[in-house]
């Protein structure tokens, strides 16, 4: 196991270095495929080894002492990089955030108090699941990116070709994510955390347009603010608890409920705060929206398998320590609120990627809420949400990207009748959307479990957030689906490359398999995981419900398949639609009041004046900030007292 993990962390950095020097597009493609394949195999291998023993292992990487200094050096490297870039773009103030936290961490490392010796790495159930998500979903996005970026640079001549840098960054990202989920030493975790922050900043700024630069800096300062939280947690833990082991910090947090010093909650609150920024919860949602300016693969990577998942990974890690205290309250209130507001905001958007971005925020809100509740059932639900969200969102982004390459637009209004125009892409898109909200899929199972748990803990406001949030979620997904299944006679030339389809179909198949085999996944993976976190075993969903879900799943898959069969044949339509007798003779146009032919457009509802960003964004940010300030104040008060 040790060797596999070492390779998983080390190899991506090596490949990244290699990619940074390769100029030939073909060679680069091969390296990405090969590197991705190796990572995938290694991730699966780690899981296989794990299933052999199922014993949590802690260990050190070879030459741990040297690596300690390397990590410290890395911290400083990131700091100088941030300083250089922020001075270059006249945003010097942002570098202060980086300098402060790097110096704090360096102080602990070099001059800090004596801390208890412990291993640096740890592998357990949660780690394995995260490894699989990164290794499968993340890597496939890389595969997809090879074909996509070729098309991208053919369409966007104005954007400088920086693909060497792009793919290098993607691999650095993999490495950092692997490191993040396996680190036990919080100093290391902090380094990997910062690496993902800086990486996402660099990826968002890919096109170097003014908008991209602005958005990337917004992502940077918000993530650095979160990083500052981790730095505070490190200093507190080192000085007051004499440990830099994440798991000791969590255990100390759990002890608060048994009467230990309430100050132990402070590092937990800080870690939770960092996680909230990383997973783009409400006051910090705007950075993830801004991330859309980047080419699609990086949005897919940011939204599905990596950075936002780093945030929720952290929340689930510390969920035991958040159960029933003010940190947990902060987290689940923010999460529930974000779930509701995110889905409201998604209704008013017509840009496909923007809808996806808001839905990510909203969905992560639900995951956050579940983790913040810190009950076994909710963590179970959160994990299923993570799995389904990672796969579905990744395929949705890739699909929208492919549609944009083929039709030149990613606006939902332009996707009218996609089922006949680009049947293969439409099918994948439909499966992806279904995975996000339809009845037998993960989202609903998890909502079921979450609702039950929130009722059980008597949290009126959270129950209301969930029921209202569910209603609004249905709205924006259904209207998108309706658009795709609509009528259109236009034909499109599908320019999607084979590597892209490989990734798309793999994802679509995974969604279906996840859906059909979810009882097995629950039994063999998620339940042991929650048992490991909480110590007791509990079956969240009953057998009867599982049977019901599977019947629905089977029923619902037959339908799109039939749809596909029907759209392929495309028989002649027997009658034309009713238009008050003013049809021109087909379903496309009608006679207007001037007696002239006019093309008919049907459009979705967006309710901009009710739910637009202008109306809702600012109040939400204010409310979110208030919640965080109030609850951090409570925790801080407890710590000082």
């Amino acid at each position, binding site marked *: 196991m040790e060797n596999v993990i070492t390779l998983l962390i080390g190899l991506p950095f090596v490949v990244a270095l290699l990619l940074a020097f390769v100029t030939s597009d073909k060679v680069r493609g091969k390296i990405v495929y090969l590197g991705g394949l190796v990572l995938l195999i290694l991730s699966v291998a780690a899981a296989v080894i794990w299933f052999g023993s199922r014993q949590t292992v802690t260990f050190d990487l070879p030459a741990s002492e040297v690596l300690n200094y390397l990590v410290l050096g890395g911290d400083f490297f990131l700091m100088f990089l941030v300083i250089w870039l922020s001075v270059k773009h006249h945003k010097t103030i942002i570098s202060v955030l980086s300098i402060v936290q790097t110096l704090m961490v360096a102080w602990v490392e070099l001059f800090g108090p004596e801390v208890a010796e412990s291993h640096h790495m740890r592998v357990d159930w949660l780690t394995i699941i995260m490894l699989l998500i990164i290794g499968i979903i993340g890597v496939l996005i890389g595969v997809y990116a090879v074909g996509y970026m070729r098309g991208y640079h053919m369409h966007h001549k104005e954007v400088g070709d920086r693909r060497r840098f792009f793919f290098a960054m993607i691999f650095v990202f993999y490495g950092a994510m692997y490191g993040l989920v396996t680190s036990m030493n919080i100093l290391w975790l902090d380094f990997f955390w910062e690496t993902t922050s800086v990486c996402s900043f660099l990826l968002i700024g890919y096109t170097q347009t003014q908008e991209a630069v602005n958005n990337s800096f917004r992502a940077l300062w918000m993530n650095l603010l979160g990083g500052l939280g981790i730095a505070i947690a490190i200093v507190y833990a080192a000085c007051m608890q004499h440990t830099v082991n994440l798991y000791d910090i969590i255990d100390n947090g759990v002890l608060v409920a048994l009467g230990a010093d309430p100050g132990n909650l402070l590092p937990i609150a800080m870690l939770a705060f960092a996680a909230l920024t990383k997973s783009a919860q409400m006051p910090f949602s705007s950075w993830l929206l801004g991330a859309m300016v980047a080419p699609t693969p990086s949005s897919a990577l940011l939204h599905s398998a990596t950075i936002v998942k780093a945030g929720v990974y952290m929340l689930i890690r510390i969920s035991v320590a958040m159960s029933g205290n003010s940190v947990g309250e902060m987290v689940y209130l923010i999460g529930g609120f974000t779930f509701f507001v995110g889905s409201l905001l998604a209704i008013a958007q017509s840009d496909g990627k923007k809808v996806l971005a808001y839905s990510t925020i909203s969905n992560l809100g639900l995951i956050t809420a579940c983790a913040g509740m810190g009950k076994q059932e909710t963590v179970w639900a959160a994990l299923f949400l993570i799995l389904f969200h990672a796969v579905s969102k990744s395929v949705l982004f890739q699909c929208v990207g492919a549609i944009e390459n083929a039709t030149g637009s990613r606006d939902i209004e332009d996707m009218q009748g996609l089922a006949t125009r680009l049947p293969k892409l439409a099918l994948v898109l439909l499966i992806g959307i279904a995975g996000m909200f339809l009845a037998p899929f993960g989202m609903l199972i998890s909502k079921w479990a979450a609702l039950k748990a929130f009722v059980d803990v008597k949290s009126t406001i959270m129950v209301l957030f969930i*029921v209202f949030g569910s209603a609004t979620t*249905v709205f924006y997904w259904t209207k998108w689906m309706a658009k795709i299944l609509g009528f259109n006679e236009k034909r499109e030339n599908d320019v999607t490359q084979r590597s892209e389809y490989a990734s798309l179909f793999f994802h679509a198949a995974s969604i279906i398999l996840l859906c059909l085999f979810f009882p097995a996944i629950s039994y063999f993976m998620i339940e042991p995981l929650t048992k490991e976190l909480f110590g007791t075993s509990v079956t969240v969903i009953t057998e009867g419900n599982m049977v019901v879900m599977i019947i629905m799943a089977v029923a619902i898959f037959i339908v799109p398949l039939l*749809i596909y069969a029907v759209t392929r044949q495309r028989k002649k339509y027997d009658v034309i639609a*009713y238009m008050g007798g003013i049809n021109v003779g087909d379903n496309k146009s009608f006679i207007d009041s001037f007696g002239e032919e006019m093309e008919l457009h049907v459009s979705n509802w967006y309710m901009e004046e009710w739910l637009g960003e202008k109306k809702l964004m600012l109040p939400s940010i204010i409310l979110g900030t208030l919640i965080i300030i109030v609850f951090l104040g409570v925790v801080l008060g407890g710590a000082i007292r």
Partner: protein
Amino acid sequence: MIEITYFMQRVIAGILFVLAAPLIGGLLEGIDRKISARMQGRKGPSILQPFYDVAKLVKKQLLAVNNLQLLLVTSYFLFMVFTGALFFSGCDILMCFFAMSTASMFLLLASTSTHSPYSTMGSHRELIQIMSYEPMVLLTAVGFYLASDSFKVYEIVQSDRPTILFAPGFFLGFVFILTIKFRKSPFDLSTSHHAHQEVVKGVTTEMVGLQYALTELAEWYENVFLLGVVGLFFVSSNPWSYLAAVIAIAVVYFIEILIDNVSARVKWQLMLKMAWGMTLITGGLNLFILDLIR
């Protein structure tokens, strides 16, 4: 052994629903038409008229604006039958509601797949309707859970006291959104049983013959299921409670008909505000109070 007989009972109840629901649903609609007619000073059609209508629709020539539509309508129908069967066989009530929203989604897709301006407009209004009633529907499930500690219908019917004692607010809220679900005025925005003006027949504008027959049937199934939920509020382990449930259903149904006949259609903004407002006031308040005293 007892478990097996119990399981068989549940299966039989489910099958009974599938067989009997269209009859009951059709009769209910017949009664509805009759009462409405009397309220308006007309004689009204025979109580069996809905059956004649559907029989005639089935016999009609199969026309389609889009081949997809029949498929989606069939899915709508099947999921609606499934929803009710789940409920009457005593399964999880939250699952029933989830299945119901999936069914409504299929109706919506069927309607927009035609590219008809009227049905598209209708389906967007339908979406707003779904968004208006969905929170209360989910809260209703929560209400049952709070009253009897279980989402499972077969456990709810065995509780010592009927749900209504704990959840009168949830009941009121549910009856309120029932007007939307029954497509009754003032909330018959997306389609209506009466002649519509500006959206023609809304969601069902482009449905003819078999397709329209299927939506009618699906609606009957849905109505029986929803009235079943109304009845569930009154059911407990006491056999007499079933009588109370039937009376409650009759009263609620009559009130819905009365509301239909005395009110004018509202705009979607008002509907959304009213439905969400009622949800918060009735369901939300009831939930809050139960959370306090539990």
